């Protein structure tokens, strides 16, 4: 158990180092940092002096070590475009994206898991066929189109909900939250549904596949033969065993949610990290791109680590295998 945890942590550190290396290479080789920092009036001599002072002539490895050290201390450098510290720009945007992502994830689970279980238990029902057909369309409709449709219906035609921005926000320490005002929730609803729909279809399909697999297994057949009441069989024996993959789904989907939030944030002009990333790509703002990459990778690695540890906690078989 301890061995497993330590092994996973070492793996995570390696993934983070790989991503940091990627970000560093971006920063170092895509465009020349000196030309980005200085204007046309700066003489070549001054440019060279600056290059020497900033240590850009040092060996590659020592530059990378310094870069990683700075990152660990929370020093992410300055944006080429706004000249602000990147760390400030990103932390300012984190709450918006996280709140959007978490609400979207909750929506997708609250609808996706029951729908998946239902369609697995009644595979020939008319509702199941309808739901499955709808999700196939749901997978095929790109996120931005879902966003446009929701804006058109609820924003433009019906005029019920705002179509851009975060609405009213409350400042709690460094965290700018829109979860505590009515207008904040109103503004959150459409983007969260947009972001949740695609994840919802994935959740549903996976839960369904898993549930069908479990229902075919020997212990369920045996329980059926023993005369365990159907309700208990479905919701106690079968569903509990589908929960392991559901946890993986949450882990994987968190990644999807964060990535697709780029699209959703763009459609709804939601002031989160995704919008910042898009702007930084458009203006080739390499420091922001690199740091965004590192921050996102950190979220992923963290979530995946937690998921793996939860696995071991939930599934006794995995613990046994470790003991052998």
């Amino acid at each position, binding site marked *: 158990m301890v061995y497993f945890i330590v092994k996973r942590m070492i793996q995570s550190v390696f*993934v983070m180092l*790989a*991503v940091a290396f990627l970000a560093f290479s*971006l920063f170092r080789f*895509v*465009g020349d940092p000196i030309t980005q920092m200085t204007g046309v009036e700066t003489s070549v001599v001054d440019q060279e002096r600056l290059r020497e002072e900033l240590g850009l002539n040092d060996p590659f490895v020592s530059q990378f070590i310094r870069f990683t050290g700075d990152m660990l201390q929370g020093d992410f450098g300055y944006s080429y475009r706004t000249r602000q510290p990147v760390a400030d720009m990103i932390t300012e945007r984190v709450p918006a994206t996280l709140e959007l992502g978490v609400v979207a994830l909750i929506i997708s689970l609250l609808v996706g898991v029951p729908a998946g279980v239902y369609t697995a238990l009644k595979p020939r029902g008319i509702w199941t066929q309808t739901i499955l057909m709808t999700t*196939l*369309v749901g*997978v*095929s*409709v*790109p*996120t*931005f*189109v879902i966003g*446009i449709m929701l*804006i*058109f219906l609820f924003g*433009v035609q019906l005029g019920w909900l705002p179509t851009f921005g975060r609405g009213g926000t409350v400042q709690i320490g460094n965290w700018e939250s829109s979860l505590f005002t009515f207008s904040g929730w109103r503004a959150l609803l459409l983007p969260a549904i947009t972001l949740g729909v695609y994840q919802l279809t994935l959740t549903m399909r996976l839960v369904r596949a898993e549930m069908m697999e479990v229902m075919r297994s020997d212990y369920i057949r045996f329980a059926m033969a023993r005369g365990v009441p159907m309700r208990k069989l479905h919701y106690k024996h079968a569903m509990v065993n589908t929960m392991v993959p559901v946890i993986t789904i949450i882990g994987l989907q968190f*990644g*999807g949610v964060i*990535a*697709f939030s*780029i*699209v959703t944030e*763009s459609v709804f002009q939601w002031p989160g990290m995704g919008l910042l*990333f*898009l702007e*930084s*790509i*458009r203006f*080739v703002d*390499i420091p922001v*791109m690199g740091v965004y*990459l590192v921050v*996102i*990778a950190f979220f*992923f*690695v963290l979530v*995946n680590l937690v998921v793996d540890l939860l696995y071991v906690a939930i599934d006794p078989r995995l613990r046994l295998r470790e003991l052998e």
Partner: protein
Amino acid sequence: MIAFLKKYEGLWLFVHSPSAIVAAMVATLIILGAIFASWIALVNPYDLASFSLFDGLLPPVWQDGANPKYLLGTDDQGRDMISAILYGARLSLIIGLSALTIAAVIGVGLGLAAGYYGGRFDAVVMRIADVQLALPAILTALLIDGIARGILPAAIQQDLRVAVLTLAIALSLWVNFARTARATTFVQMNKEYVQAAIMMGQRPSRVMFVHILPNILGPLLVIMTVDLASAILLEATLSFLGIGLPADSPSLGTLIRIGMQFMLSGEWWILWIPTLFLIALVVSINILGDFLRDIFNPRLR
């Protein structure tokens, strides 16, 4: 006839699956329309001289004030919507298919080799795949696009947009191919025919491509259809975000982005017709993909 169909089980299932037939028809129609776009289309949307601003913002024929020449209306520039969509679909399909081909070549090549050689090579390829899989495709594609913007000189960037976009999509989709090819190759490696071929002293490349590859084509074909849909969606999304293709050579995604500007002003067709078209294309490809998966995975039937 029935005996013939029963012999080929896939075909038999196909003629008995109405959704697969409809999907195949829709996909074929769109693909044919895209291939013959320059013959069908009234105007060439890339050629500014072939359309006129005076024809701008005409609604589709079934609405008042329409010009019967333009069946689905025109956009603000006076471009015929049908022409714009056909050319847009052509561009989307070209980018999607070339990206898919590149992704398949890279992914299947690496996956086959990883499954064949195993050991350290396999470990390295799979670790790279793991890291990339942690980043969703859209993020990878955006990143590659951003890097290309930084590296390429501004003068040739516009000319290379299509190539950059294709490469960005290809590099974000190869992992699926690699993983599937590797897993299925592993299974084949234990089969006697492969062992026999190796023992006969055949070259590794021959064993991989002549013996193993034909036997793992089924699952790869399923990945191909599913990933074609993903590639088209990725392209549309990137173009919609405004970092894909510029507005003078519009793909379906660019058309939707342009159409968004008219959402509030009542010219619904500029937004919704390309959108419907994109959805129809991707839905039909996905239905075909689902159908193929069911064929190759009898357990799900």
